């Protein structure tokens, strides 16, 4: 027996989740759970919750409601271009009309196409649960703390994702931003690998650089340590040290062979994309 809940408010959805805990599953666009024919004893449908479909910018934070579809976000000029481009590379129009960014984050697939970009944008996942008082309590986790591995997240049984937040400072005044997906074809292809890069150059010095790789391990690969080594370099120093940097990333990337691609191809293309990106 499957009990279906179509809550009228976020608080009601959280109340149902609190009651049913791990027996309950949220459904947003359904584009992941439907092909997989996943069901749970309690299914909570989020589609009607307009409170979750908002994008807003307050002060220095951009907040993307968990119910926003890709299509909605691709057309929203508040959303950083690099994220819009990554979403545009997902599936095809009909899937983008239903699928959500939050669903992509919660699914935590190694090949999730928004994940490398969300890492370089320093995204924060807002999880919420209902306190006994009836108040909604929020908990904020950096994306790399939220996604623990393939299909594993830090979401607690009583929680749902309310929004994904992006600090505006992460994408303002950038010199170069890039998101790149390599798949078997343009539409409807799961990534063989993906790359996202963001940097800020001022007076010929790399002030800020953030680099992430997708589909080359159970979770996105991003090394703050290596980024720190690149930060502060002048463009001439960067050109001189590029080979060392590539070698360090080569040691970090541990892709696998699978039905979509080989480890060797993945590593090679990741490094080529990185080399191209670092050619400033």
């Amino acid at each position, binding site marked *: 027996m*499957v009990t*279906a809940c179509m809550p009228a408010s976020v608080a009601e959805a959280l109340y149902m989740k609190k009651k049913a805990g791990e027996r309950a599953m949220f459904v947003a666009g*359904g*584009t992941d759970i439907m092909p997989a024919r996943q069901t749970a004893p309690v299914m909570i449908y989020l589609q009607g919750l307009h409170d979750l479909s908002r994008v807003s910018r307050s002060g220095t934070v951009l907040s993307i409601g968990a119910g926003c579809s890709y299509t909605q976000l691709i057309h929203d000029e508040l959303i950083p271009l690099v994220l819009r481009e990554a979403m545009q590379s997902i599936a*095809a129009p009909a*899937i983008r009309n*239903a699928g959500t960014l939050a669903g992509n984050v919660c699914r935590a697939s190694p090949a999730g196409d928004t994940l490398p970009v969300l890492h370089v944008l320093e995204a924060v996942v807002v999880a919420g649960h209902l306190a006994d008082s009836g108040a909604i309590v929020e908990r904020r986790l950096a994306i790399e703390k939220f996604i623990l591995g393939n299909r594993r997240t830090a979401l607690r049984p009583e929680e749902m994702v309310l929004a994904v937040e992006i600090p505006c400072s992460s994408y303002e005044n950038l010199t170069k931003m890039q998101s790149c997906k390599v798949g078997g074809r343009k539409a409807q292809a799961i990534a063989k690998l993906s790359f996202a890069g963001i940097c800020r150059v001022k007076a010929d010095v790399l002030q800020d650089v953030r680099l992430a790789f997708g589909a080359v391990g159970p979770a996105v690969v991003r090394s703050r340590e290596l980024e720190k080594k690149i930060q502060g370099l002048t463009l001439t120093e960067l050109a001189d040290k590029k080979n060392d940097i590539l070698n360090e990333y080569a040691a970090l990337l541990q892709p696998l062979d699978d039905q979509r691609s080989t480890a060797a191809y993945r590593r090679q293309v990741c490094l080529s994309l990185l080399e191209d990106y670092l050619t400033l």
Partner: protein
Amino acid sequence: MVEFTLNGKNVTSQQPPHTRLLDVLREEFGLRATKEGCGEGECGACSVLVEGMLWNSCVTPLANVRRKSVTTLEGFRDTERYRLLEQCFSEAGAVQCGFCTPGMIMAAEALLSHNPWPLEAEIREAISGNLCRCTGYNMIVDAVRRAAAKGAGLW
């Protein structure tokens, strides 16, 4: 029980909310223009319009169309736009076995209703989730382009 608008009429489905919209359309309401190809969101044979947007009914749980308007090919067939699309698909040789055609027509309508003057790249993008095993696509792109050219004012 889920209430929604189907081809302009208010209806109530008796199926459980997690039922695929595709099955509700075909089995409960007897609307068989919507086809099942892959059943996984990959091929577009099951395309319908939800609030005027293209959705794959095979990956849509019934609950997700609650209080929304769903249009299948049957609900679109009696319009000027449909007649023009049908004529252009026929002229361009865009139909062979016909299995993809209802989905292609819905994808064309979704495109033209938002963008009456599409570029070729936009037409290809709009049908990129609709697979055709017969035509090689160029004829379908041509059909949509003809419809856009002849359809001034319709969309």
